[in-house]
């Protein structure tokens, strides 16, 4: 009983550490800096992709979009030029409804975990996407089919299945905090921290690991592969930050999360943007987000372009 009680800390100490709570995030940050009318730009992955391509942000190539139920049967026709593909709901969140097909024949589709599904199951999955099962608010949705990212071998030992991605929190256009999310057996190949993925806080200036957590607890090694998480090194760090910073120019959202993956051939690519990024990143970094945002509010210059903002964060622009 007392043990359970001692797992609580006083709100005063959290405040002192600059930790941001959900209510504060929703009320003081999201409601103030994220205009409601801008949400569709990031909630709809098809729109995000088109916008990103316009502004010159690298994203996985779109193979096709299935909008109507009667198009679902054409899925093989749509992907016929590709050996592998990803199906995801355009309005999905938290990685729900994402189906990765690594190889397939006419009636057997293999996922990265080796599970084989039939065409009927694939058909069903796309139907579910269209009927809004995975979309926010259960509205009708479209299914986005895009190229599979060939994730870089650099992270091979750090992630169990799934694609590791870098989440960068962007505040007023400045990359504010970042972490790498590594899927584990416990997370079922997904990169969501609450499902059991590992979060590795990355120093925003260098991209070097600060600390790692799984289920809110600090860890040092990847639980499945045993890799030393402190050896993680993200290449093309500057490019990661550039994509994140450009995301602000592209959407106008004052507070957002950019999810970036590293393709072995095409470099860092923006997977999606999020208008309500979660707060677990604070735990992965061991740093309070409120304190960081306050610093940006009070000391960072305004009126910079994306490149300059990145330079400033990297400490190259005084």
């Amino acid at each position: 009983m007392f043990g359970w009680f001692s797992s609580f800390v006083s709100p005063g100490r959290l405040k002192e550490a600059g930790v941001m709570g959900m209510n504060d995030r929703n009320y003081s940050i999201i409601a103030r800096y994220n205009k409601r009318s801008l949400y569709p730009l990031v909630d709809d992955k098809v729109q995000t992709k088109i916008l990103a391509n316009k502004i010159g942000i690298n994203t996985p190539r779109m193979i096709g979009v299935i909008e109507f139920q009667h198009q679902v049967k054409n899925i093989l026709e749509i992907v016929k030029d590709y050996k592998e593909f990803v199906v995801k709901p355009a309005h999905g969140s938290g990685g729900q409804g994402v189906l990765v097909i690594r190889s397939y024949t006419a009636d057997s589709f293999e996922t990265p975990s080796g599970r084989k599904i039939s065409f009927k199951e694939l058909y069903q999955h796309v139907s579910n996407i269209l009927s809004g099962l995975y979309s926010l608010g259960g509205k009708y949705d479209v299914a986005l089919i895009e190229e599979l990212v060939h994730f870089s071998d650099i992270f091979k030992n750090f992630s169990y299945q799934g694609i590791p991605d870098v989440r960068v929190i962007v505040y007023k256009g400045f990359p504010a905090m970042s972490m790498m999310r590594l899927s584990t057996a416990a997370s079922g190949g997904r990169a969501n921290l609450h499902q059991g993925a590992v979060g590795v806080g990355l120093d925003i200036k260098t991209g070097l690991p600060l600390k790692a957590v799984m289920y809110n607890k600090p860890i040092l090694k990847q639980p499945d592969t045993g890799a030393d998480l402190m050896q993680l090194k993200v290449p093309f760090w500057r490019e990661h930050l550039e994509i994140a910073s450009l995301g602000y120019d592209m959407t106008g959202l004052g507070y957002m999360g950019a999810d970036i993956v590293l393709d072995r051939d095409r470099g860092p690519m923006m997977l999606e943007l999020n208008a309500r990024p979660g707060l677990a990143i604070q735990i992965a970094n061991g740093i309070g987000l409120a304190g960081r945002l306050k610093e940006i509010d009070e000391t960072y210059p305004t009126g910079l372009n994306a490149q300059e903002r990145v330079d400033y964060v990297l400490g190259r622009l005084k």
Partner: protein
Amino acid sequence: MKKFFSVRCILTYLLVLSAVYAAYAAYYKIEYWGFNFAPKQNTNIWTIEAHVSFMPNGEPIKVSLARPTASNEFKILEEDVVANGFKVGKINKNTPRIIATAKPKDGGEQNLYYRVLLFDNVDGKGRIKATPPKKPDMPVMDDQVREVAKELLKLAKTQYPDDEWPARIIKLLNQTPPEPTVVAFLPMKKSQKDMAQAVKTLLATEGVPSRIARGIKLVENKKSTSADLMIEAYVNGKWKLFNLKTGEKGLPKNFVIFQRGGDSLLDVEGGEDSVVKFSVLKSITSSFKLAGKRAELADQKVRFDYSIYNLPLAEQNTLKWLSIFPLAILVVVVMRNVVGIQTMGTFTPMLLAMALTKTGFAAGLIAFGVIIALGLFIRFWLSKLNLLLVPRISAVVIFVILIMQILTIVGYQFDFKIGLSAVFFPIIIMAWIIERASITWEEDGAMNACREVFYSLIVAIITYFIVSSEYIRHIMFAFDELNLVILFTVMLLGTYTGYRLTELTRFAPLVKDKK
């Protein structure tokens, strides 16, 4: 300065204002409508019936009967006179007597009935301010009796020095065994009337004005041929009532005065052998039902007419049911934004709690468990059929209905209340819980699905215990202005930026590592 006009400040003012308004309204309703914080408050209604009978003697008839006049000690719900063949004078709240007249009659016994329904009778002080009446005349009595009286007064003064004169005399006369002097003055077997007369005489000897008050003592199912008496004496500038048995001062709760002073209770002209018989009957009614009458008596009728409580009972019950919702909503808001428990759907737990109040707690939980378990089982089977979302959900809804039907039939056969009550569950909500739970199950594992259902259930149970309390329901209905307070509390919570309770553990690693 700007701070005073921020959203948070304005909402705080509104909250304080609404709280003040609710407090005033509560005071008003208690004061004028007799509302109570406790539920199921009952009020006794006393029915007093005076039955007057006499034999006409051929002259024109005039019957005059004293009636209780408006006073602070009780309220009159209704009164009526049944007098066939008589013309009854108008009665308003200050009419001291009922007058019934008739042409000369011959023939048998005449009967008149006067019925009055009283409620809210309270302990009155029984004091009336009045200008001093003239000094009472020295009673006429022979010298021997006068000596006894003086002796008695002396005794009374020495034995009860702290009491007022009337109390002294009453206490002395009621002593058992009686003083020899008392026996000389008043027979051992004394009637109420003898006693009252004796006290009056002694008071007059001492120079204290007094009069006899006739009324009815409220005792259940009482039948009596005579009125009950109290003595009223003029002491220190006020008329004060005294109990003839104990000498206690003041008007007791259960005594209703019909008439005071010299006039008789009943006068009949044109008749003989007139008798008035009283009977008293107690009935109990809900305090709430009398609110309208109380409002009327307090000249607050208009306000009452435009309140919930003047609506037909069916509408009142609906509104009573609705007026508990804001509180349940407040619970949900607090659970989510202050405690930080994630539930399935925002208001699902609240609707579950409402269903539980209809089904009963244990039966409802069992029914809920059975429906969810069977529903999940069926949902897993359905997911193998690869149906589209809307038809699949619809199928689950129909299955839920079928499960409820089966529960009802089985429950009836086994004389078990579960089934009959299960019908109250919001069917669509149940279907959605099943759908969400099964998706969470497939995607995040059984643990997460069970946790979500469990948390929703916990919040539902907490809400249930709050909304099922008879006290709270009564207060939220009787003092419905509280809903305004809840509204502004909820809105103010909308500006709450502090940590949620669960975040105090969630983010604990952020400060613990620093040590």
